């Protein structure tokens, strides 16, 4: 089980958290200008790196706030957590 450091509450076990996938995926600035292919990229395509990954977590059984984490998808080691856009 991962130990995740909520920036608000401190270190808690993984089962208190929900996962939100890749971080820093902004809503399109001008949605009307997007082609179907661009919409598909926005809706369905996410990075899936083998290595360092910036991702979203929510402390659902705690303060219920969203934050970002940098985690290695090979070792599962979380090197930092931080507040990001929309936190």
């Amino acid at each position, binding site marked *: *089980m991962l130990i995740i450091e909520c920036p608000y509450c401190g270190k808690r076990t993984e089962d208190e958290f929900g996962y939100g996938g890749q971080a820093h995926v902004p809503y399109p600035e001008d949605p009307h200008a997007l082609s*179907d292919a661009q919409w*598909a990229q926005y809706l369905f*395509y996410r990075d899936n790196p*083998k290595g360092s990954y910036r991702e979203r977590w929510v402390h659902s059984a705690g303060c219920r706030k969203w934050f970002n984490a940098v985690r290695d*998808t*090979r070792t599962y080691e979380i090197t930092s957590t931080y507040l990001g856009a929309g936190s």
Partner: protein
Amino acid sequence: MSQRDLPQHPKFLWHNPEPARHYDAIIVGGGGHGLATAYYLAKNHGITRVAVLERGWLAGGNMARNTTIIRSNYLWDESAAMYETSLKLWEGLENELDYEIFFSQRGVLNLAHTLQDVRESVRRVEANRLNGIDAEWVDPQQVKELCPIINIGQEIRYPVMGATYQARAGIAKHDWVAWAYARRASEMGVDLIQNCEVQGFVMDGDKVTGVKTNRGTIYSDKVGLAAAGHTSVLTQLAGFRVPIQSHPLQALVSELHDIIHPTVVMSNHVHVYVSQAHKGELVMGAGVDPYNGYGQRGSFHIIEQQMSAAVELFPAFARAHLLRTWGGIVDVTLDASPIMGLTPVQGMYVNCGWGTGGFKAVPGAGTAFAHTIAHDEPHPLNEPFALDRFETGALIDEHGASAVAH
């Protein structure tokens, strides 16, 4: 049902050749899908100058780690066609490959625990029947008759309200399936090359002409990717993305027991699935870890959740000892359906996104993928599963509908 003795493992199942410089087709990934594809390329299309490149050992990925449940009771027509074609092939596979695979059609129960489950299950039964697939709705008493050790009492948090039952569904011995395909493919001239990792591609404009590996460059103008959880790592090297996320999925076994669990029981709602292996281990699985991962191990709290569900449903399990747990890396798409077909790179084909359920698809998908590679166009079975469905919006959304949460 009686226990069967496993046959001895024959010493020489396939050759271990050095890679040649050129092939008519290269398959990346020596799991069930890669091996079946190579076999059907040789058998159905006469293309035998084929290499299967496997970075580890043959069928040591998800193929060696899955809980081997085979069924075809999926909701949507496209999935039903793929899995039912596979199930029919499973029914003849031991004969076709002339090798024991211990395919045991002991039936699969998909339990319903809420009113919503019940409605969804009955709908799926009707959809299955319209597609010519055997399916029944069974009430709690009938569930108990099919699996006497199950608890159908009202005192538990989510009592059993009934189940769908597919009698032709079952399990097979996964390693033997892989070895059976490997042996036949090798006999027909396919080169199975282990410890050979694809690390890049050779391109001529937007066409692929070969692969770079730790054992040198190997040329072919047809390259099929069947690398399960690693597909996006490969497509990134080829310059395009696939909408998959890799997740750890784990399973576990108990020590050996007498045969007490005659069928396969799955529950989407409390999320555990159980069968009993031929030798007697209770084989159990649950859901994926929510986060992306390539670590081939899963989280402990998933085991806790699945065990509490299992012990409520099967009180006898409370005294069973857990013997071993392990994990695989499954490739999940947003509509919980596979991706199979052409790619933006000419001559490169992809077969991925099977998530938690691709073992059952091995024969049908292998047939369809071989056709796709041989003819440079999809087989009718995999046409709906093309990459462009994420652009057109023609998603085949099997989340929940397929009776398992991904």
